[in-house]
């Protein structure tokens, strides 16, 4: 009877090993050497994973670079370019209205060339355009996330008629023709509002409109997550300790919603950049002379045969920015996903 004996001893030894960390007062082996046992929070684990993802890191660096460009736009332009609204008619062929220099007038003085007809510095306008793009995209994303989170969590947690009403509102919002609405809205906007000048009003309108049409997407995700989280036993545990609804929403549910919300927000920013560009392209964005990438693309249409670079440069700016945010957002999602294999 060797086999059963062997089996018994093996079983016993496994039990001891399993039991050891459970036993009272047994010093923890892994933490024994280090004095304080520090827990690895889910965020720390996500950060370690993100650091291993090369593509996401590259995206993050580009995003960081763009943020710096936006923040220090006046400095950068002061060092490397000309004021964005300054006309340089000497750089323009008076006959055709195109830049005199080859490749759209690219030179050491005008890094990205000059704009056809009026000769403004494309580099400066791209740099200032970064500000508009990022500001509108990020602010609209924040707006959408805050609104979507609050309404989504309320719908999911309270359920019943509140949920039914909010869900229908979200359905209506998602079916709404956002682009047409925005174009119509912008055309009736006054030139100044609440102390903002023409461009300021347009930017504020863009943020509010893009954000307002973005919240149902966040709201639906948050509602679904809340629905699945509110029946977890830890919510019941908090209830059995006497927790009220607000405590449960804030302390038990919200921390578990941060991850999906973060992922959605980082993936929403590139979409917002594209929306802003599209609206500016259609003339519903910021007002000239304020520079924006979409608006530059739209200006370039008339001269793209003679000066293709003027169209390529803002296009590239949009492309690189959107790609970087997407790579970064994908990386964040993979890092926060507990089932991620990477």
């Amino acid at each position, binding site marked *: 009877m060797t086999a059963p004996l062997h089996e018994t001893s093996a079983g016993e030894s*496994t*039990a001891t090993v*399993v*039991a050891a*960390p*459970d*036993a*009272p*007062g*047994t*010093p*923890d082996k892994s*933490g024994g050497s280090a004095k*304080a*046992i*520090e*827990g*690895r*929070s*889910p965020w720390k684990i996500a950060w370690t994973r993100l650091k291993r993802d090369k593509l996401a890191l590259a995206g993050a660096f580009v995003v960081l670079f763009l943020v710096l460009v936006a923040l220090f736009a006046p400095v950068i332009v002061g060092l490397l370019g000309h004021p964005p609204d300054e006309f340089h008619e000497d750089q323009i062929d008076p006959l055709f209205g195109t830049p005199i220099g080859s490749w759209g007038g690219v030179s050491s003085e005008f890094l990205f060339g000059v704009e056809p007809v009026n000769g403004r510095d494309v580099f400066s306008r791209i740099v200032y355009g970064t500000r508009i793009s990022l500001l509108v995209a990020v602010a609209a994303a924040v707006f959408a996330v805050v609104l979507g989170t609050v309404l989504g969590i309320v719908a999911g947690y309270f359920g019943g008629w509140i949920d039914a009403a909010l869900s229908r509102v979200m359905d209506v919002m998602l079916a709404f023709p956002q682009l047409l609405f925005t174009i119509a809205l912008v055309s009736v906007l006054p030139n100044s509002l609440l102390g903002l000048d023409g461009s300021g009003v347009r930017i504020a309108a863009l943020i509010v409109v893009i954000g307002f049409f973005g919240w149902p997407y966040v709201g639906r995700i948050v509602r679904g997550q809340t629905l699945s989280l509110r029946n*977890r*036993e*830890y919510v*019941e*545990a*908090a*209830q*059995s*300790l*006497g*927790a*009220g*609804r607000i*405590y449960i929403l804030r302390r*038990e549910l919200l*921390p*578990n919603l*941060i991850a999906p919300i973060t992922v959605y927000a980082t993936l929403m920013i590139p979409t917002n950049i594209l929306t802003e560009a599209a609206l500016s392209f259609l003339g519903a964005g910021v007002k000239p002379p304020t520079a924006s990438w979409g608006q530059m693309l739209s200006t370039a249409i008339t001269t793209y045969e003679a000066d293709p670079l003027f169209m390529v440069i803002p296009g590239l700016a949009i492309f690189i920015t959107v790609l970087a945010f997407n790579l970064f957002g994908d990386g964040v999602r993979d890092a926060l996903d507990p089932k991620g294999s990477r």
Partner: protein
Amino acid sequence: MEPLLKVTGLKKHFPIKKGLLQRQTGAVKAVDGIDFEVLPGETLGVVGESGCGKSTMGRLITRLLEPTDGRVEFQGKDISHLGVSGMRPFRRDIQMIFQDPYGSLNPRHTVGTIVSAPFKLQGVEPEGGVKKEVQRLLGLVGLNPEHYNRYPHEFSGGQRQRIGIARALALKPKLVVADEPVSALDVSIQAQVVNLLDDLQQELGLTYVIIAHDLSVIRHVSDRIAVMYLGKIVELADRKSLYENPMHPYTRALMSAVPIPDPRRRGAKSDRILLTGDVPSPIAPPPGCRFHTRCWKATDLCKTQEPPLVELRPGQRVACHHPENAELLTIPGARESVEITKAETKPEAKAEAEAKAEVETPASANADADADAPTEGGDAPKA
């Protein structure tokens, strides 16, 4: 003795709503009229198949759910319809241990945050500060107090369940309701957690209501046992009576389903009762006795008249028209209240003498066997 918890006519019906207007078309009768009481210091085990309403019952007495009907009294005070704030002072005394050690701890909180939540929510400042008290509790349940800053995912299932137990004990409750406390754990860990619960009961003078479907766990921990079937208690008895002389056919069937660990004893005397058919839907429970659809003793009476839960022997309440071991009835009047099927009845005097002998022998034999079980009260509540 004044019961710590008294439940009378407790019902929970979950409405089924359909259509655009959310009209109620029916109800899941999860718990449908149960009565029992829990005495201070005892352990009441609740067994039953999945879906029989035992978890709902646990959530009703901890007031995570509001009863549809009936009363829950804790220390003589009616708590059946108190709101969140009205219930808060009672939460200190009534605590719950949950089934799923992975679901009952918030993955985004550290162990320290989880175990200190009771103090925060109840506004209690323990002696020596919250952190010290939490570390003492972690030590009490056999965890390393230094794991204070760790997250739940860094622990094994058994360790997580200990964290849940530490949280439940933080406010020094009087009554602890444990909903399947070990069913999600490995068998080797189950024993550890069950023994921990036993030790803590001794140490802190706790009263337990332990809900489980595992008969061996229930047998080990309980003083009294309630057997539930389809939202009703069919039998409520002290442990010894229930395991030795189950009177409800359903209890007998459950008992016979316990696997025999010794292969040599297996098959020697196969008196296993196999129930046929499924548990009926709690949306439309069968009329009369709910068990009649699967009972081998069912008669026409069972199909029409619901048997009340009456005390047929001291400390043994049964809801059945044709109880098993009916010859053991000793309470006068109890015999009249049940109809004993003729075929089952043996010559009475002989049967009774036999029965007495039977009761005597296992009792003395069990005294030794149970000596190591700390919760063995042995004394069923006197009728």
